[in-house]
């Protein structure tokens, strides 16, 4: 069924890639319940990696391991390693705040601070005692997020007056302002209408030239449209999320090695 459609419009890829994040034998528990089992996955630098799979299979849990947001959940426990630039981010000497600056995150529902547009973008720098030209950084971040033209005349009005799509791009600008290397996005368009979704997708394609992007999505078409690499996660018989397969998006969609992947991308999955 899918094979009759157009192929994902993704640029040809060099087969060799340089991983910026390496996930090794990662398992996650929330309390007694195991969420993810034995995940091994590379995140290539300056590429978009889509993490795809049915709702509740642990995709969000997986990207929340990459910037240690799971630390905030009582009872969360991990085994295995996440190597960022070859350093284990779960090593005791790692400064979590610095890690989260370098690996930014955008959430499912737009969550701007109830402050002005300007303050939303500037805050991440303010808390680090940024001494440079704040106006400049705010403008650059908003431009990168393709929001500048829409908000440049109302920078000091409340961010909550923006539309959902604008709020989500503001959240991207806010994450970019602190100069991260990796941007994690947890179903960033699931609360948006199709036009706002398209804008976000275009934006991510542009950003992937300079940033490594990991996007969680349960939308098969979205993964096909924007990503260079795709990882598929599904439940096993014990309701533990497992990596089914991963590779260049082109291969996953045209030549899936696993039958479950094929069923999922053709919509036959239950």
């Amino acid at each position, binding site marked *: 069924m899918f094979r009759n459609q157009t192929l994902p419009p993704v640029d040809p890829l060099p087969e060799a890639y340089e991983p910026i994040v390496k996930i090794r034998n990662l398992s996650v528990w929330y309390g007694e319940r195991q969420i993810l089992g034995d995940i091994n996955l590379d995140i290539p630098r300056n590429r978009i990696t889509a993490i795809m799979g049915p709702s509740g299979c642990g995709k969000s849990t997986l990207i929340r391991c990459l910037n240690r947001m799971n630390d*905030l959940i009582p009872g969360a426990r991990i085994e295995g390693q996440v190597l960022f630039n070859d350093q284990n981010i779960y090593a005791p000497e790692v400064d979590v705040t610095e890690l989260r600056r370098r690996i930014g995150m955008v959430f499912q529902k737009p969550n701007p601070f*109830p402050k002005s547009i300007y303050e939303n973008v500037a805050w*991440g720098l303010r808390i680090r005692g940024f001494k440079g030209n704040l106006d400049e950084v705010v403008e650059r971040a908003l431009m990168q997020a393709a929001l500048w033209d829409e908000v440049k005349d109302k920078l000091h009005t409340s961010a909550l007056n923006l539309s959902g799509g604008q709020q989500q791009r503001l959240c991207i600008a*806010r994450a970019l302002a*602190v100069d991260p290397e990796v941007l994690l996005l947890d179903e960033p368009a699931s609360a948006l209408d199709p036009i706002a979704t398209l804008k976000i997708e275009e934006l991510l394609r542009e950003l992937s030239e300079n940033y490594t992007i990991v996007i969680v999505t349960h939308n098969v078409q979205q993964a096909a449209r924007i990503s260079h690499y795709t990882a598929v996660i599904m439940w096993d018989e014990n309701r533990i999320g497992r990596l089914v397969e991963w590779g260049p998006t082109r291969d996953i969609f045209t030549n899936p090695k696993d039958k479950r992947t094929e069923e999922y991308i053709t919509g036959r999955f239950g």
Partner: protein
Amino acid sequence: MKGKWLDETFRAFAFFSTLIGILVLCLLLADVLKDGLPRLSWKFITSFPSRRAEEAGILPALVGSAMLLVLTALFAFPVGVAAGIYLEEYAPDNPFTRFIELNIANLAGVPSIIYGLLGLEIFVRAMRGITGGRSILSGALTMALLVLPVIIVSAREAIRAVPKSIREAGYALGATKWQVVRDQVLPVAMPGILTGTILALSRAIGETAPLITIGALTYIAFLPPLSLKALHSPFTVLPIQIFNWVSRPQEAFHANAAAAIIVLLLLLLSMNAAAIYLRNRFQQRLE
């Protein structure tokens, strides 16, 4: 058919129950206004108490209530908010924390006279050197203890009402817990915390028992000095003044009491209005 009849009866019953509350309040207000309004004047507010009812005023009691209120807020607000932040954001979920939480809830229900006895023992007697004994400082510290549980509980509720997504946004930017609490959580929670604090203080302003216990006077013919010594001066407050006048046999003093009640009510109503205003602003901001 029968169901409809029952329904109507219950509706009427509920309506009259509501009416009782409003009627009693109106009667009370009408009675107080009838007795007190003719007596209420600028002179009444700016005069000292006197043996002659027509010359007596409420100045020391009003100043005492105001000072007590400000001092109580000064002590109780920072401690209450800090405790609320600790319990909501920092405290681990263990038996010790739960023990503290349970006791704070219990403290909010302790009769106020118990706080008066506590204040008498600790602030008036044990800490006499600092508080100056039966002083306005002792009174304010006692009142601060009294309102503290309410402020802690309302601070916790306001902090808990701040959406988790705002905290996550902060942490995801690499902020520390204190930075998230200070810059994102507290500003959003502040109107709620202030509402709770004002309501707690409006309870304090009507309290009499604990202040009588720690030895507030009923007759004060001077104002506290305009210096730090004011903290050590003896004091009285509006409810005590009212109680004093009501318990006298002469009718004229009863009119004084009614007039003082009007002043106290106005003070209370304006405090509650401020609380409602803040709460409405809070709700608008979250939408």
